[in-house]
């Protein structure tokens, strides 16, 4: 699956969240928006306390960005394991340095794919799935394949 279309489709998906219109890859590279979205998806797990661990004002310091991204990714992996009972060991985890330093769309697509998996499996999944069902068909198709890839990893 051509990962630029994955990244651009998942950016469109993120725009369905309140206040995220016009979101860009660069806006996501510090991990703060990702953490806020995860807090909205599963506040019981990605709690306010968890959010405090994510540094808000890292500017362009890519090392601090990567440090944030590492906490976000670890939280996601733990959520799949502890909350969703899903094994994603086979899923190619994103290269956080490439995201933090270069905003790499391929790696960003992987990260957003994991967040998508949280949204469509969480307690409040209905609102997120229905929002996807109201998107362009082409985008829905990319999102379906992204979820299937996660599930494939989970079932294989």
């Amino acid at each position: 699956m051509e990962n630029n279309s994955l990244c651009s489709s998942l950016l469109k998906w993120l725009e369905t969240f309140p206040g995220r219109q016009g979101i860009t890859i660069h806006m996501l590279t510090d991990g703060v928006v990702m953490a806020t979205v995860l807090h909205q998806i599963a506040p019981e797990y990605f709690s306010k306390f968890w959010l405090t661990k994510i540094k808000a004002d890292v500017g362009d310091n890519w090392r601090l960005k990567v440090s944030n991204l590492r906490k976000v990714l670890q939280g996601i992996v733990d959520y799949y394991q502890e909350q969703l009972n899903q094994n994603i060991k086979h899923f190619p985890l994103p290269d956080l340095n490439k995201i933090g330093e270069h905003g790499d769309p391929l790696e960003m697509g992987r990260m957003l794919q994991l967040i998508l998996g949280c949204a469509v499996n969480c307690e409040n999944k209905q609102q997120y799935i229905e929002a996807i069902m109201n998107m362009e068909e082409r985008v829905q198709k990319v999102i379906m394949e992204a979820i299937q890839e996660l599930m494939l990893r989970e079932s294989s």
Partner: protein
Amino acid sequence: IESTKPGVTGANEGVLANFFNSLLSKKTGTNPP
């Protein structure tokens, strides 16, 4: 739940709607925190 997106072609819409409806009905495996 039918996708309400205008201009969606019939065949694809069915596949997409079926998939997302199956996600909706899939048991949520979330443990209490």
